[in-house]
């Protein structure tokens, strides 16, 4: 693939030569280079799921262009007996299906890798240190698929068969995965299966295995599920009882709502055919967030999902939500900015713009899921927090987590009832009359969270006036200096309450190490692997704190205090998380913070993290 370094040194040091292939079992990556719109997704998904069915931990990443059809796209599958799921820079097996990039693709491989390609492309001319498997794809396809217009699609299944044979993938696993993929389409399943078999038979008869990469059955995937982060967010929202959903399509966030619609139609239509939810495709993101805040104000559990450009448009409304104390949940599936940026590439670069979104003094709670399971759980937590804290809550996922398939333990059914927050009934308002009546923005409980009422509450004193202009505790218009200042101070205290309620960081600490790593979201996959590399290759045992929310819980301070050097790993240029940490830590602690950044649009990989830490450590 164009973006990897030609001849990059091997990570695991497991180079193989054609002469003496020492088997490399359950630890390699496959890259399938295709053309966008050629229908290779099904084939890639079948390949991924067959490896999964063999019990081998596996992950897949789709690297696609901002285009509907015609431009190059790459899908990588990583099998790892260690359970590593981060992107790996090194490719072991290339399946070159795109004539236009084939030369570049094969040139980017490291010595000892293998390549499967259309035989007429004659890629062998470019590399004699790569094992070459030429395959007559077109001929094989034509033989199994008489209908010419289907051949483009069916051709993809040929490489599944070839790979299955070369890598010793169990054909039963392949068939299972394929039948699942085409669950309702028996004819398509049969046709595609014929193609898989044709590829398999061809490889068995005409190719000689020379590369070292093989799969062997394991039991590491039993009971696990495979799901993408966006579907997980959607499920989390449904099980959180979402009732109003608004959106404006944008990659990579659209599939959150698209999949949510499917789930809601299936599980939230009542016996009489009526829906316990409303989904609106809004005219833009301004409207999407406006609808969320209007619905939240009126008492619904409301959400929208977007990406960077949409976040920018939501700024003014988000300030209103903060200042007038309105619940709402906003999913941001981050992509590369600014502006249109690289719309189909991943980043963690919306932190600062969301943390302080809107003018004036504002700050917003951000939840930072680091797995599909946390997408599910944090989606639920976001609705509880939004209603409890009466403020917009942001859930920051990214393209890597959102649009790729991940292995996970099954999600657990929420064990707590929904927390609908401090909402007064007519009876409670009546009761409060005895103690001076209720005031919308009074802090009665000392947690800086006021009580609210919903429109429709049947009491003459239930109503109040919601506004983005200055107001006092009774929600009356006020420009009095002390009213404004009191309100702003209470909002700041409410943020302190939030600090105690958001998901706490996950800390792995030995108590011995001077070095700590702080990361969050999808950087976790690379950091997990990098810590092993640091230990194995350099004898450095780095402690680890994975942030799961902003504002930071107390543990963050303690973690920094107990280390000499802290590496903050993140996927943006400006060290945005490091900046947030600096704002929070005592001045004396901030010189400890060092930055490891990755911002080329590709998911961060372990080797990059390791190399950078090693460099800065001066090892």
């Amino acid at each position, binding site marked *: 693939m164009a973006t990897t370094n030609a001849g990059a040194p091997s990570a695991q040091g497991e180079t193989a030569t054609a002469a003496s292939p020492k088997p490399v079992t359950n630890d390699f990556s496959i890259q399938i280079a295709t053309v966008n719109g050629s229908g290779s997704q099904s084939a890639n998904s079948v390949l991924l799921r067959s490896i999964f069915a063999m019990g081998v931990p596996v992950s897949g990443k789709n690297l696609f262009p901002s285009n509907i059809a015609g431009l190059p796209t790459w899908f990588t599958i990583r099998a790892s007996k260690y359970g590593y799921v981060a992107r790996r820079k090194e490719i072991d097996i290339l399946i070159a299906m795109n004539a236009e990039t084939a030369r570049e693709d094969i040139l980017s491989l490291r010595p000892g890798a293998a390549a499967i390609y259309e035989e007429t492309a004659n890629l062998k001319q470019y590399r004699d240190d790569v094992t070459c498997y030429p395959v007559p794809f077109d001929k094989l396809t034509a033989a199994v698929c008489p209908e010419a217009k289907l051949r483009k699609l069916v051709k993809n299944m040929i490489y599944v068969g070839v790979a299955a044979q070369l890598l010793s993938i169990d054909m039963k696993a392949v068939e299972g995965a394929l039948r699942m993929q085409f669950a309702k389409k028996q004819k398509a399943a049969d046709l595609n299966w014929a193609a898989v078999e044709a590829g398999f038979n061809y490889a068995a008869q005409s190719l000689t295995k020379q590369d070292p990469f093989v799969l062997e059955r394991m039991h590491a995937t039993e*009971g*696990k*599920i*495979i*799901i993408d982060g966006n579907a997980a967010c959607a499920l989390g929202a*449904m099980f959180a*009882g*979402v*009732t*109003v959903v*608004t959106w404006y399509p944008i990659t990579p966030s659209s599939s959150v709502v698209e999949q949510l619609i499917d*789930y809601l139609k299936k599980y*939230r239509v009542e016996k009489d055919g*009526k*829906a*316990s939810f*409303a989904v*609106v495709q*809004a*005219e*833009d993101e*301004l*409207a999407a*967030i*406006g*609808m*969320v*805040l*209007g*619905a*939240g*104000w*009126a*008492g*619904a559990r*409301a959400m929208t999902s977007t990406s960077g450009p949409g976040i920018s448009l939501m700024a003014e*409304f988000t300030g*209103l939500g903060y200042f007038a104390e309105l619940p709402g949940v906003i999913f941001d599936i981050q992509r590369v900015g600014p502006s249109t940026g690289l719309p189909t590439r991943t980043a963690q670069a919306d932190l600062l713009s969301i943390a302080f979104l809107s003018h004036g003094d504002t700050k917003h709670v951000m939840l930072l899921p680091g797995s599909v399971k946390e997408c599910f759980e944090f989606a639920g937590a976001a609705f509880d927090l939004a209603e409890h804290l009466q403020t917009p809550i942001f859930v920051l996922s990214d393209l890597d987590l959102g649009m790729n398939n991940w292995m996970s333990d*099954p*999600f657990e*059914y929420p064990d707590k009832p*929904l927390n609908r927050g401090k909402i007064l009934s*007519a009876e409670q308002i*009546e009761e409060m009359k005895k103690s001076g009546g209720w005031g919308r923005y009074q802090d009665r409980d000392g947690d800086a969270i006021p009580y609210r009422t*919903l*429109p*429709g*509450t*049947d*009491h*003459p004193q*239930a*109503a*109040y*006036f*919601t*506004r*983005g*202009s200055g107001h006092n505790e009774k929600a009356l*218009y006020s420009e009095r200096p002390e009213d404004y200042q009191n309100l702003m101070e209470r909002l700041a205290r409410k943020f302190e309450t939030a600090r105690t309620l958001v998901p706490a960081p996950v800390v792995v600490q030995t108590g011995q190490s001077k070095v700590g790593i702080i990361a969050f979201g999808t950087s976790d996959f690379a950091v997990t692997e990098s810590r092993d590399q640091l230990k194995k290759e350099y004898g450095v045992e780095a402690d680890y704190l994975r942030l799961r929310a902003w504002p930071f819980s107390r543990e963050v301070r303690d973690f920094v205090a107990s280390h000499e050097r802290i590496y903050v790993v993140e996927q943006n240029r400006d060290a945005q998380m490091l900046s947030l940490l600096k704002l929070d830590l005592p001045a004396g602690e901030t010189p400890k913070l060092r930055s490891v950044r990755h911002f080329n649009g590709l998911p961060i990989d372990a080797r990059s993290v390791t190399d950078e830490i090693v460099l800065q450590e001066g090892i």
Partner: protein
Amino acid sequence: MAATVTNPGPKVNRIGLPVLEYRGSKTTLCAGCGHNAISERIIDAMYEMGVQPERVMKLSGIGCSSKSPAYFMSRSHSFNSVHGRMPSVATGALLANKTMLGIGVSGDGDSASIGIGQFVHLMRRNLPMIYIIEDNGVYGLTKGQFSATADIGSKLKTGVVNDLPAIDTCSLAIQLGATFVGRSFSGDKRQLLTMLKAAIAHKGTVMLDVISPCVTFNDHEGSTRSYKYMQDHEEPVSEVGFVPVFEEIDVEYDAGTTFDVTMHDGSLLRLRKLHEDYNPTDRALAVKTLMESHEKGEVLTGVFYIDTQKAAFTDLLNLVDEPLATLPQERTRPSKQVLEEVMARLK
């Protein structure tokens, strides 16, 4: 807690409330501002129709006009949002609780400029609510700049003349799908009150553009939104009569001169033709009539278009009968079995 006041003192409406219970805070708008008169008519209409104030949601954007929900119906929840974006807030609020009566107050700047994107989409959705534009041809709150509804040739106090065409919010609303569209004048008490009462009975988007002179910035010679200009140029297309469902119909119907429309709740909207070819159920004709009268320099008022058949947005979504906002957890969180079923499919 429907307050059923039974003392013989003040006059009460059909749900037992005196008009006082429909009042708001004291206005802070300029004395003589058309917006104040509109607030008064809203109070009268809600009182006369016997609407329970707790069943009303007031929504607005930003502007002098958008402040006015503070000056009527304090017993109703109110949401003064951001400039031009009240339509989205209203949409969300009504989806959350479709059983409420929504009344939105906007300005000509709020709706025809910064908010026109949201305005057109609200009309298109036929969201069931009353949407009032308090139209003074200027931005009152920012001290008198032209708005996009100002007529060509209209002059500001500073002598600046508008040379861009006016956006006719009524024509737009009709073309986009609003189902009750009319124009009135804050100074025309009877017509405005009658239209507001009919609006309360309608299910779908009611868009009322109410000419509402800004006495401070746009009531001078040369303005086409002044009281004087309106007195000289108002041209009712029909005489609007309304008989609510709870009153007896005592006037005889004459098919040649009147149009009777039965509203969703059984109330009757009776429109006496003042213009030849007037037919409030013909969209194309309505828009044509508006354009022609505008060319003639008239300000046409009355109900221009009404459709009582088209489904409102909340009906299209096929929502459960109860408000989504307060559905119990049993109806919004699927069971454990559902999650297990979903998980099993992903294995």
